[in-house]
């Protein structure tokens, strides 16, 4: 029987063996990475880097570090619209119809006195204008001039209960028509970012009223974090002590879908 006969010569040479070994090792490793990517335990390990990044950046930067502000000459000629281009609900269409005259920003949750602010109220508050760089998680950047009321001013008016730890921004856009109702866009930040001087609720971009594509009538600017934290179409600011009871529990639409809640990197 030929099956038990030993081969008379080496089936493969040393060089070929080495080549095959390297290729095999590579394939096993990449396959291994894919399998590890599917393991919840391993994902938890990878996710631990987020806490390290958050603590390191808070330790080094804290309340004081400021995002770079640019000159008018640096403005991007075309500021890319990303995410929702226009909320597709009849409620939003109705608000847009009459120029957001009936729109109100609700501020509630763990505040001393809840507020309902019109666009005129927000324009009458102290204003901040800043030319900053918007960094998308995808990798691109655009520079724009944002103007609006500092969130700190709004929270000064509403007052905070001592237990408040996060500001949650509820938005008008349903980004994904998820069956469990978690498709509504929302975002949240800690109090360090909430009271940062560059954190504003912008109603103007490049000296014009905010367009629908960029989040009319009001969007958040939290300049030391990535684009998906800059919630558009903000309808309500809820002060809260925990994030695990909102959406899928991770503090934001994209964090609920695997992205970092702390998007300073």
């Amino acid at each position, binding site marked *: 029987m030929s099956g038990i006969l030993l081969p008379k010569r080496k089936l493969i040479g040393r060089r070929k063996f080495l080549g095959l070994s390297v290729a095999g090792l590579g394939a096993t490793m*990449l396959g291994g*990475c894919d399998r590890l*990517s599917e393991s919840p335990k391993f994902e938890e390990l990878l996710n631990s*880097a987020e806490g390290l990044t958050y603590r390191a950046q808070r330790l080094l930067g804290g309340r004081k*570090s400021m995002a770079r502000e640019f000159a008018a000459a640096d403005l991007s000629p075309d500021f890319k619209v990303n995410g929702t281009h226009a909320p597709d609900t009849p409620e939003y269409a109705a608000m847009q119809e009459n120029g957001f005259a009936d729109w109100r920003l609700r501020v509630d949750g763990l505040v001393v006195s809840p507020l309902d602010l019109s666009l005129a109220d927000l324009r009458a508050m102290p204003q901040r204008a800043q030319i900053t760089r918007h960094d*998308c998680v*995808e990798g691109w*950047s655009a*520079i724009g001039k944002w103007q609006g009321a500092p969130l700190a001013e709004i929270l000064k008016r509403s007052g905070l209960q001592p237990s408040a730890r996060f500001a949650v921004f509820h938005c008008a856009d349903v980004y994904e028509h998820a069956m469990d109702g978690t498709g509504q866009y929302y975002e949240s930040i800690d109090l360090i970012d909430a009271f940062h001087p560059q954190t504003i609720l912008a109603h103007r971009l490049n000296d014009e009223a905010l367009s629908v594509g960029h989040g009319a009538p009001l969007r958040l600017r939290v300049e030391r974090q990535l684009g998906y934290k800059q919630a558009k179409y903000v309808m309500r600011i809820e002060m809260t002590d925990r994030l695990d009871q909102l959406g899928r529990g991770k503090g934001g639409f994209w964090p609920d879908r695997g992205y970092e809640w702390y998007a300073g*990197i």
Partner: protein
Amino acid sequence: MTSLSTADPQASASSGRRLVQRHALATRLTHWINSLCVTVLLGSGLQIFLAHPALYWGQSGADADRPAFEIGAETSADGAQKGFVRLGSATFDTTGKLGLIGNADGDFTERAFPRWATIPGWRSLTLGRRWHFFFAWLFAANLAAYYIFGLINSHLRRDLVPTRQQLHPREILADIVDHLKLKFPKGEAARHYNPLQKFAYLGVIALLAPTMVLTGLTMSPGMDAILPWLVELFGGRQSARTIHFIAATLLVLFVIVHLVMVLLAGPINGVRAMITGKLAISTEDKK
């Protein structure tokens, strides 16, 4: 800490080969941790790049701006889909390799890099980022450990900084000729790195690796607020992203040359030295 040139007392001179202590434990450990990190960072970095496969110079850059480098897919005049790589104004057809990748069903998918090159293989910016940042921390910590040990046990100064003699043009030229002839040092000469080897290692350790870390940090809006000079240093966040990509490409080239040299110089001896610390050198053909 042991050094490159400490002779092993147990080495047998009679066989014509003897084992000498080559790499300190710290060097070996950091080398293998680094290999793991660089592999994962490359794969996950390419995964992240899939989300926006274009590079720009300057502070900003997006769809409306002109990229310096781009990988993509487009429909050509004859209606066929083509993958392309564009560098400045030069466009190269890379259908099937880059930009437009063939899948198992024989169809093409728009994708800058093929599945085998990214971590994970399927498209996932979230997982790519999770892998990348975890191993970026490990890479940076490992690099810091390497520098610290390298200073403490004099590995950097003694083994990697070229001697005055090695910096002589004649010596460097001779080493280039040796490399071209694939002539590798034997005997006592094999105990020390040659000039080109030192330049390559120092280039990676002192230049490329810190560049990777710093350009990586420059892409972080949080770090830009903390260290504003980072953005100045690289001429903008998008420039930093481009330099990150270039430095990664140079690192890949280094690894390819490094692996080829290991294979040519004797892979078993070389790899064993990086695992056990002991290198076999011949005692017969002493220089």
